[in-house]
């Protein structure tokens, strides 16, 4: 039982690493990868809970999260490509026309 706690803590650590990555990286693609990392940590939490609760619902949820991740990846990368065409950069700090 104790082990599950450590799985959850591992998931928390990954989540935080991902969050920090989103905040400190400037490359839009890498930021997106950090978001994927966060999603993965959520998946780990779900699978752990699922095992702990003897229920399959968590695993199904993970399945759907993966679907969503795939969908987001398609759209997100398309957005990045679109902006690269117009601005020739993926540095999010250069993408701040609109502010205040």
């Amino acid at each position, binding site marked *: 039982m104790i082990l599950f706690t450590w799985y959850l803590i591992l998931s928390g650590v990954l989540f935080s690493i991902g*969050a920090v990555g989103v905040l400190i990286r400037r490359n839009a693609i890498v*930021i997106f990868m950090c978001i994927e990392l966060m999603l993965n940590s959520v998946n780990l939490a779900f699978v752990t809970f699922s095992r702990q609760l003897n229920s399959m619902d968590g695993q199904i949820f993970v399945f759907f999260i993966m679907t969503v991740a795939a969908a987001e990846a398609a759209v997100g990368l398309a957005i990045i490509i679109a902006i690269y065409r117009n601005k020739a950069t993926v540095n*999010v*700090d250069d993408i*701040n*026309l*609109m*502010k205040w």
Partner: protein
Amino acid sequence: MPYFFGCSYLDLIGYVLLFPLAGTIINGLLGKKLSKFVVGIIGCTAIGISFILSFFVFIDLLKLDPEHRVFEIDYFTWIGSGSFEAIAGLQVDPLSVVMILVVTGVGFLIHVYSIGYMHDDDGFYRYFTYLNLFTFSMLLLVLANNFLLMFIGWEGVGLCSYLLIGFWFEKKSASTAGMKAFIVNRVGDFGFILAIMLIFVTFKTIDFTEVFHAAPEHLQMGSFVAIMITLLLFVGAVGKSAQIPLYTWLPDAMEGPTPVSALIHAATMVTAGVYMVVRCNVLYTLAPFSLTVVAVIGGVTALFAATIGLAQNDIKRVLAYSTVSQIGYMFLACGVGAYITGIFHLVTHAFFKALLFLGSGSVIHGLGGEQDMRKMGGLKKYMPTTYTTFLIGTLAIAGIPPFAGFFSKDEVLLDAFSKGSLFLWALGAFAALLTAFYMFRLLFMTFYGKSNMSKHVEEHVHESPMSILIPLLVLALLSILGGFIGFPTASAINSFLAPVIGGGHHGMIDGGDLHHVSNSLMFSMMGISTGIAVAGILLAYLMYVKQPDLPAKLVGKFKLIYTIIYNKYYVDEIYDATIVKPTVKTSFILWKIVDVKIIDGFVNAIARIVELKGEVLKLFQTGYVRNYALSILLGGVIIIVCSLVLL
């Protein structure tokens, strides 16, 4: 009229509202294509018919016996389900009838006057559209049968005043003044709307009749809720009726055309607060503390505004401060429980203040737009009719018998003395002295003495056209006779309005009923107030008529007589140095420092702080997506920590 057979005029009360609205719509949509003449006719007819209808309603109401003079017409269920109910309808009772008579009557005269006054203006049709809309909103405010509907009229009045004050928006000062009026009004409305919500939550209804019926059982005398409701309502009244500390918009509002000042700032809009307090008299009676607040604010405003009036040189600003001061009187009366007296003063004030504003408008018109009194003088011979009517108005406001203002002001002071306290009376009495003084100062500076006009202006001075003079004459007549509706021993208005006070069925307070006051007190008070008024007038006469030219003439001719006369004047000088100068100085200080710097500055400062806060907060919106993510994470972490700690 056969059409109306079998149908009381009371049922037609809706049309009183409908005609001004129709006027608004017609003028608003088609006005651009119609000629000025037609636009004016439409505008005036709309209000004129309303006035005639109101008059018939009034007659019909008189036919009923006093206990049954409350008549409600429900139109539709406005909000109605479960615990939240309001039926939109109109309420006709003595109070609202008096108000609609004043609003449509004075309003009609001002409409007629406007035809002449605004004739050369490009925005003629716009002007009449706003004017009709304004009248409509005011009538809605007065006739509403529940708080929320009243609030709609209340907001509508504020909105129209903003449009009308900012009418000459090419002048930057005008558009800022309009904006200021609207926003300060909103501050007041903020209190009003909270009060309505509190009423709704307490009584489960916002209908006047039901609320006032339930109030004595629902609310303890002097309970916290009662005080909160009434004080919040009063915040609304303070905003709309331009009392301390929310009066700053009114003097600025003089940027609008003069008839607008007469309509908004004399006869109708600013009286809305008084009307509302009187309408809610049942609630106020349950909250003695609030009544005290009302009385003190009213009294202090009366005096404060009067002092500021002393130092003004703009003819309309003097009148503006005098309005603030007179409204203060009305609140003073309401605050001591003499609600009917408050309405009485409201009515007479509507007459003479409209007269004064329109008169000043006539002067300004004659002088081609000049508003500075120092550049006037000696107009008596150029504009005799204007002068006569203006004199009547001034006498009325100063409280000289038998003009309208005398009766009402005297009654206010009497009530302040007999029902309130010596302090309140003193506030009122001193303000009366100042009023007489500054009003006659205005009169003398404008119409007497030698002309200070520039050559160019002097050549063009002329008496105003008939469309301007006729309303002046009518109003002058009303200012002379208006007071007799409240003649002390046989007060018609008193008996007419009495059922409205105290919810009509409890009779917890005896309105403006003067029976308990002895006749000797009454007459001595009359004497005192007349004396005060005369003193004020004489003082003004000394300072602005006799003094200015006499010394200069005499000094050169007779040295000896000069000394004598000088000595004679020495008395005046002492007088001047000990009483007049300090007062004027104080008033100047009050105006420059308290009014302009502190209160006005405060209002502006809040606006600036709000904007500054916005500017600073804006800087957080850096445009960097990572910064936004940071704020999400930061907010999230704070929420999680807080929730873990708190729960």
